[in-house]
Each structure stands twice: as C-alpha cells, then as structure tokens.
C-alpha cells in the first residue's frame, strides 16, 4: 500500500493513536501467545478421544510454537511489502480457519496440520508485525509501551485458562475449539487498528535511491511520489526488486545485529527448559503438587509485573541510555538464578527463585524489541524482529529434549540447570563485550574528530536548547544504532 502523497513525515507520536496500537498489540499477544499456552489444556481430552499417549499429543504444542517462530520472517515480509493491516488480518483469518478446521478433526495427524501448522502460521503473520508497529509509534515511552503490550501473554494465560476449561466442560473440545476460533478472529480487529505511519527515517532513504544511476530517468518523477519498494515499482524493474530485498535485510550484516542474534540464540536456549522442568524438579525435591502449581502461578503473575515495571523503569531518562545494559543485566540475573536452582531444595527457597526468575523473564521479554530497534532502527524493525523470533524457534524446539536427556543420563536436574544458567550468562557477557568494544571504538573515533562536540556546544541557547534536546534524544538513538557507518555511507 503506497503511503498517502501528502502524509507528513512525522516523528513517533508517543501517544494519541499510539495507545490504540498498544491496545491492539496487547490483544494480539493474548490471541497468539496465551492461546498457544492454553492449547495444552485440550491434551487430556485429545488423549482420551484419540487413545494416544501424552508424548504424541504434546507434539501439537511444539508444532504451534515452532511454526509461530519459524514463520516470523514471513510475517514481517508480508507486512513490509503489502501492509501491516493486511498482514495481521490475513494472519487472523488463517489462525481462525486452523482452529475451526481442528474442531472437525478425525485423527491426531489432522490436528497436527490444522491446529499445529495452520494456526501457528496464522499467529506468525500477526506477532512480529504488531510488535514492530508499537516501535514505530513510540520513542520516548517505547519500553513502557512494549511492557504493556507484552504483558498480554501473562494476563491472557491467567484469564483464558479457566475460560477454556469452562468451554471444554460446556461444549466438549470440538465446541471449545470452534469458539476459540471465533475469539482468535479478533486478530482482524487488531489488524484494522494498525494504521500505517510514515516516519522521517523511512523517507531518509528515498533521496539517495533516486540518485542511483541505474534507475531510468522517466521513472524518477513517479518514484518521488511513491514510497520505496511498493509493488508497482517492483513490477517495473528487477534492479529495484534486488535493491529492495537487499535494503530490507541489510541489517543482517551489521556486526552489532550479528552479536545480538547469537546472544538471542543462547538466551532462548537457556530460558526455555526452565518452564518445562520447574514443576518436575520441585516435585522431585519433595514439594507437593499444590505448591508446585503455586510456583508456576507466581512465575506467571510476576512475569506480568516485570513486563510493565521494567518497561516503565527503562523509559526513565537516566536509564534510557543504558537500556542495552538493563537488558543484559536482566538476562544475566536469570542465568544466575538458574545456576542457584540446584541448591534450592525446599519450597521456602523456591518461592524467591520464582519471584526473581519471573520478574527478570518479564523484563527481558519487554526489552527484546526495544534493543532490536536500537540496533537496527525503526525502518527495518519489522524484518529484524522477524529474524530475532525466528532464532527463538530452534532453541525452543531443541533445548527441552536435550535438558530431558541430561536429566535421564545424570539422574538429577543439576546438569541441565547449570547448562541453562551458563548459556544465559554467556549470552549476556557476549553482548556486554560487544558494547564495550563499540564504546572504545567510538571514543577513539570521537577523539579524532571534534566536529560533533563543537556542534553540541552551539545549541546551548535557552529556548532552542529545549527543543533540540528532544531531537538530540532521537539523534542519540540513531547514533547509537547506526554504528559509525550510517546508512548513507553504504
């Protein structure tokens, strides 16, 4: 969808329609992440009806989670090239169709396809575009907006779990899946809310593109009025297409993004077995079923608190520059908690563990999109988020079975928890070193060129200084994000 001709190049509004976007993203998170978690409530019913054991039924959950993360880049592709609204509405329709088709399932394989693949694909088309949209609408209060949006998964699970149980009791699993399919249709409403916004950053790339030689003269006039990489342009020249796809994914070669990607891999590897094995571990050290379930509830509720409070905290001016460090602090704390877990052998010790782990888990989940936006900038945020969530998929799939194998061979949970802890701490230290290296490089470069310093001194006059600091904030972010080599130099 081409952006309107006279749409003003705005900076992120930080409010107004932005809050509707946050509400939309909140609902998207509920409909995708919370519904994925609630699918496991159906397993008992599937086991009884199809006569299969737990392992085969649990595959459904793995397939949904994996499909949602693996197809995340596809989601960002569609939302970039067509429109965010169309992408999310399409995702909502797909997911809803998947759930409705599953209500007519006659075998477990049927469920793998409809509930697993189709619904997972639908969720993938919605998840990363919605999150990217929030990033476009907020700058000053980005982390708070993300915190509220991401808390949807915790709050959604909390509310949806008993509701799904009630639906199963009233209508059996077929009726419950049908009604859940209807509920997921609300993703279309969220899609409608995601009004596109043309940011200054996106426009920046237009002039230099027009200066390229291989674009025919006659088309340049039209290009000035249309946005980059709209479908019409692609129809005209192949060079445009290559350039467009390259432009979208050029952040992949940025060293800071590569470091972020590797650290995300290790972090996802470390955090996923915890949720799977906390309850079995608690039961093995002698905690009762009731108390173990309580531990999981604490984890869920504190997750929500961590989402919102950490988001609000890192939006404070004093902490904003150190967002990266806040993120790696949260990941590091989670890793440390994991390392201590084998020592905690009774319920009173496991409760503070749940609190701490839950809080920092919520914290870093909120900061992933923020840190990604800091690294790649808002124009490529959608594609970058797609790649980041794609990198979550393989560790989520691989890590719990590996941890389970470790438990079986060593006979205790110590080895697997230590592995998780070290994985997360490694992820955090990797980022730390990368940032330190960049900082050293930057101070080195700044000492060579004093231009930027003198420019800042000029803007100290009263009235001007106030308006400029606002702009400087954004420029600071861009400066931090773009490395010393900005887009224009490429």
């Amino acid at each position, binding site marked *: 969808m081409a952006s*309107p001709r*006279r749409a003003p190049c705005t900076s992120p509004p930080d409010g107004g329609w932005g809050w509707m976007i946050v509400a939309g993203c909140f609902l998207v998170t509920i409909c995708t992440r919370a519904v994925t978690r609630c699918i496991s409530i159906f397993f008992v019913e599937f086991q*009884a*009806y199809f*006569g299969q054991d737990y392992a085969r039924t649990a595959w459904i959950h793995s397939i949904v989670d994996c499909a949602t993360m693996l197809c995340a880049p596809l989601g960002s592709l569609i939302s970039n090239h067509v429109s965010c609204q169309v992408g999310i509405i399409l995702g909502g329709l797909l997911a809803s169709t998947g759930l409705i088709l599953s209500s007519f399932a006659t075998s477990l394989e049927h469920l793998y396809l409809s509930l697993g693949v189709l619904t997972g694909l639908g969720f993938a088309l919605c998840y990363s575009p919605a999150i990217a949209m929030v990033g476009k609408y907020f700058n000053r209060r980005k982390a708070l907006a993300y915190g509220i949006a991401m808390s949807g998964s915790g709050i959604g699970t909390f509310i949806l779990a008993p509701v799904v149980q009630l639906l199963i*009791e*009233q*209508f*059996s699993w*077929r*009726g*419950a899946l*049908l*009604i859940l*399919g*209807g*509920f997921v*249709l*609300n993703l*279309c*409403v969220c899609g*409608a*809310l995601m*009004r596109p916004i043309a940011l200054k950053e996106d426009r920046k790339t237009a002039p230099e593109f027009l200066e390229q030689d291989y674009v025919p003269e006659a088309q340049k006039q039209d290009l000035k009025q249309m946005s980059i990489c709209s479908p019409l342009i692609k129809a005209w020249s192949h060079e445009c297409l290559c350039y467009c796809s390259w432009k979208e994914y050029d952040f992949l070669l940025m060293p800071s993004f590569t470091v972020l990607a590797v650290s995300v891999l290790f972090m996802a590897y470390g955090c996923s077995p915890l949720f799977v094995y906390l309850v079995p571990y608690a039961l093995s050290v002698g905690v009762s079923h009731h108390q173990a379930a309580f531990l999981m509830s604490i984890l869920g509720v504190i997750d929500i608190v961590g989402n919102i409070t950490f988001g609000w905290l890192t939006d404070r001016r004093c902490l904003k520059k150190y967002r990266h460090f806040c993120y790696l602090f949260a990941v590091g704390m989670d890793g440390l908690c994991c390392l201590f877990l084998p020592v905690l052998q009774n319920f009173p010790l496991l409760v503070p563990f749940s609190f701490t782990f839950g809080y920092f888990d919520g914290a870093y989940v909120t900061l992933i999109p923020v840190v990604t936006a800091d690294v790649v900038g808002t124009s490529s945020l959608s594609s970058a988020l797609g790649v980041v969530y794609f990198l979550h998929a393989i560790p989520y799939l691989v890590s719990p079975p590996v941890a389970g194998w470790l438990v079986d061979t060593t006979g205790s949970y110590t080895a697997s928890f230590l592995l998780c802890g070290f994985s997360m701490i490694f992820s955090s230290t990797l980022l730390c070193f990368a940032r330190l290296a960049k900082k050293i490089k930057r101070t080195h470069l700044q000492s060579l060129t004093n231009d930027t310093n003198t420019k800042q001194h000029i803007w100290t006059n009263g009235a001007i200084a106030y308006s400029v600091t606002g702009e400087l904030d954004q420029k600071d972010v861009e400066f931090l994000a773009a490395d010393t080599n900005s887009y224009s130099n490429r």
Partner: protein
Amino acid sequence: MTTEDASQTQGNLTQMPTRLNESSTEPMTTTRIVNRQTRESISDHSPVGHGVSTPGPDLTTQDFKQAIEEKASNFTYVEYEILLSGVSGTSKEKNITLDNPAKVELSCRLASKYPHLNIVQVAWKRGNETIKHINKTENSWSIQLTVTDENELGSYSCTLKGEEEFKAVFHLQVPKIEGKEKPIISYDGDSVVMICKSSSYTPITWTWYLTNGSEQIAINDSLMSDKYVIDRVPANTTHLKILKLTKKDDGAYWCEAVFKLGKSKGKLKLKVLTFMVPLKPFLVILAEVIILVAIVFLYEVYSKKKEKHAEDEKEFEQVEQLKSEESNGVESSSTRHRKV
C-alpha cells in the same frame, strides 16, 4: 466343606500347609470352618468379662497366627485400630476398603490417659450379632475376621461400657468407583469415549450398563460391535467408546467393577448436543468482529477526511494571509509614496 466337628477342624488346621498348593478354594474352606468354630465357642461363653480370654479362642488365635505365617502369600493380613478418647457418647468411624479376601483384625483401644474408667463390658457386634473378641492388651480389644465374600463385609462396632460409654464402628467395603459429576458432552454423529478408573485396586472385570427408563441394561459389545466398543486393558481402567451418537444415547451410564469381594458402580452422564449449540456463540463473536472492524475502518476514513479538510483549510488560510500581506504591503508602499 460343612464339617462341624471341632477336633476335625483342628486336624484340618494343622494340615493346612500341605493343602496350600492344591487349589485356591481349599484354604478358603478351611478358614470358613475356623470362623464357624470361633462362633460356636462364642455361644458357649458369655460376652461379659474383660481381659480374660478363654482357652478356646486363644487356641484359635494362635492357630490363626500360625496360619498367617504359613500362608501369607495367599491372604493379606491387615490390622486396623480406632483410638477412643475424650467425650463419651460420641462414635468414631473408620472406612476400610478391601478388594481381595483378607484376614482383618479390628481393635478398639482406649487412650492411656483414662485408666480410671472401669470398663465393665466390651461388646463387638455386627448388626445384632455379637462377635467374640480378645483382649489384646490392657486397654485394647480386638476381633479377627476372615473376609472371603461380600457377606462378611459390613459394619462392625465395638462398644465399651463402664462409667462412660464409648463406641467405634468399622465399615468394611469394596473399593468405590468414582464416576464423573459433570456430564460428558458430545455431538450428534460423533463418537465419545467414557473412562472409568479404579485407582489402587485391580478388579477382576468390568461391566458397563446403560439406563433405559428405570432399568439398567448391560452393554454387550460383541453383539453391537458397530455401536459400542469396550476396552478393558489395562486392568484398572476401562474405556467405553460409543459410535454414531444420537439423541437417544443421552442419559446415565454405569461402569461396574467386579472384585472378589463384591461389585462397585460408578455413574457417568452423557449429553448429546447438536452442532448448533456452540455455533451460536461463534456467530455472535463473528458478528462482533465484523462490526468492530467496520467501525475502525470507517473511523480511519473519517479521520483521514478530517485531516485532509484541516490541511486544505490551513493552506487556504495561508494563501489568504499571503494575499492580505501583499495587499498591505502594496498599500503601505503607496502610502509611503504619497507621503513622499
């Protein structure tokens, strides 16, 4: 099996070990006889008397113990005790679940802090029938039973009368099968699986019944194999699968577990719905989604129009302003001209 002679039974008792390996029914007959023997001796002696045990029952008890040691593999031996304390007039109860034939010892004990209460009379009863007891220790009294079929199950009570009266009741029962309180929902033309579980006790077999009016009719799955499928493996769970459901299949179903000591039933309710039932909430949600999407899109179009209108007005004003400035400028220059 009907030998009544005491001496003969004694002889039988001593021969018990050799007979063990023969058939499973042999030990049962022997124990039955022993039971009767104790009852006979009870009728010879008055139930009154505390602490003193007569030689007859004593011998039997000793034989019992021997028997238990020798044939522990066949029968389980269980002991249950109720501790009586505190308020007189109250009655304490205990439920004992038995699935296989067993030797049971039930005892009533008075808490040691009441030695001053002179217990004059101790009576063990089952219904109106009195059972001979033994005084196990100074303040506990017990009876020993061999439970081999459901006739021996029931409520056994001990009453201690003295200055105050204490009562305790033991209920011997077969394991209860849990049914489901909430109805199982399924749809027309679909199939449903109903499950009954017996947690720690393994029954010999399972039978399913459906309710027709006020009768319970057993379900024969071999006869109607295209409608009902019964699965009895593993032994402590059973699955009833009903295919091609119709409204007529609505109602109560019973799963019955057959144990050596009796039968036990669990109730399950089935409700058959048409597909219209969940379709209605789905259509309501669908309508809500369509309405909301329409509202959001209409609002977007409306606000875009408003923005465009506001921009047009702004441009118009700017143009007007420029025009007026121009005209002012011309006037001022002309006035200057005039002045000059």
